[in-house]
């Protein structure tokens, strides 16, 4: 067992424009990248459970050349809108860091 944070070389979130958020989980080694995908720990369903979002709003892609898992969602509130507290969207990945990977 290891955490996603231990296996990834970078986990980040960021605005994709003011209306969408995107999460990148990037790996140094091909083997680690495959291990995380094959573990089934990072899927739209699980992401939706963690972030309390309906699955159909979540876009998840595997980018083999970048050895990255990428997830995009609509922002719950638009960047810098009155209820928003993360203008750049840079601190939304926290709950992903400690996900356990088999």
């Amino acid at each position: 067992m290891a955490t996603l944070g231990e296996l990834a070389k970078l986990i980040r979130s960021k605005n994709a424009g003011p209306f969408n958020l995107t999460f990148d989980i990037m790996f140094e080694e091909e083997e680690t990248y495959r291990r995380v995908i094959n573990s089934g720990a990072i899927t739209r369903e699980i992401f939706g459970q963690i972030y309390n979002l309906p699955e159909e709003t979540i876009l998840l892609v595997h980018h083999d050349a970048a050895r990255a898992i990428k997830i995009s969602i609509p922002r719950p509130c638009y960047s810098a809108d009155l209820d928003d507290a993360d203008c750049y969207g840079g601190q939304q990945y926290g709950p992903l860091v400690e996900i356990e990977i088999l």
Partner: protein
Amino acid sequence: MTESRVLSPCGVLGSGFPESSLERGLLMGPHALVCDGGSTDMGPASLGTGVPHFSRAATKRDLRLLLLARAKLEIPLIIGSCGTAGSSKGLSWMREICLDISREEGLAFNLALVHSEQNKEYLKKRMSEGRIIPLDPAPVLTEKTIDSSAHIVGMMGDEPISEALGQKADVVLAGRASDTSIFACVPLRMGADRGLSWHAAKILECGAACAVTRKRPDGIFARIRDDHFIIEPLDPEMRCTPQSVASHTLYENADPFHIVEPGGVLDTTKSAYSAEDERAVCVRGSAYQIADSYSVKLEGAELAGYQSVIVGGVRDPYILRQLDSWLSGMRTGFAERAREIFPDEDGDPNYHLVIRVYGRDAVMGPLEPLAKEIPHEVGLLFEIMANDQESARALASTLSHFAVHYPIPEWSGLISGIAFPFAPAEMDKGPVYRFNINHIVYPDDPYEMFPIKYEEAGF
């Protein structure tokens, strides 16, 4: 083999770059110097107010080096999204800096200003024709939204910039432009492959961000050839790898394989990345699908109101275990108090109160899975917004007093339940703007929304 070469000195003008990197890049014989000047990252304030994110001094330092380099090589210099948001105010701010430098350095050049701020009547006309449609997600767009916007800009493609270069402009200052279009422009004019040009542009737009470890804002260089392009950082200590370059299409894009531009879609599904040497990467196979209809993305910002804020902290375990009910009781009680202060307003006083609980769920709000846990200490941020600053401040000073003494059942007698780090506890934040448009327009052609003005600098 034809080759077009583009130098990108840094991710955003004003962020700085080492002179040594620029000098090294100039020896590589670029056909154009191109730099992005803006972003929506910092929020809607720049678009709303016209005030750029970076200072005049920081921007002037970077622009001076680029104008001098341009003069030396006699190649075009293109700056996109001037003044952060690309509004007319931002564009004229950049023009002034540019003309100052021209005078100070004795530089003469043909200057083109490509405007992107949109005429509201034009937009209403296009809307009534059904030629403005929402992206997903988007706020509702009505004529009222257009009227209440402080500024609306359109995001130009490469065509208006190319038009300016065709009219012999040496320096093109563009309003809001897609980050990629400013970089794709010169290769496309030289007849380079569309897919490779747009993909190289996507990588160039963030400067050295696609290098393995970016030490500081720095530059990058692209060579676009017949069936591939080569990307290389300007700092000899930095390097790109196939993975680092491939990863860059992830950055700030919802979909890394399909990147939408005004005139089409860059498709990187079949892109192949390989090491050219230990610092440079070769990319092949990128495609570009021309869209059926040309579309221009709009960005708008409107004034939401004026804000005053209060920062405080709570350490009392009894308050912390009932924090939500304490805050909601406080919110209700404060509303009654506000009605006493502003009794003349119709109905309820017009204010908007946001209370953020740092240490619990302030950062992630509705996305926070651990919102139910009780921390030993929290930070509170009260944001109160009203129609003018005086009212916001009046409400904030009442709120800080009301909140600090708001009771809980466990304690009898007057409590002081919030630790304020500042005195006075209230701070005026000024006007607050919000993004209010996420739509595209179908214009008749790529030029009609982006008028160009030409002038001679320093002649």
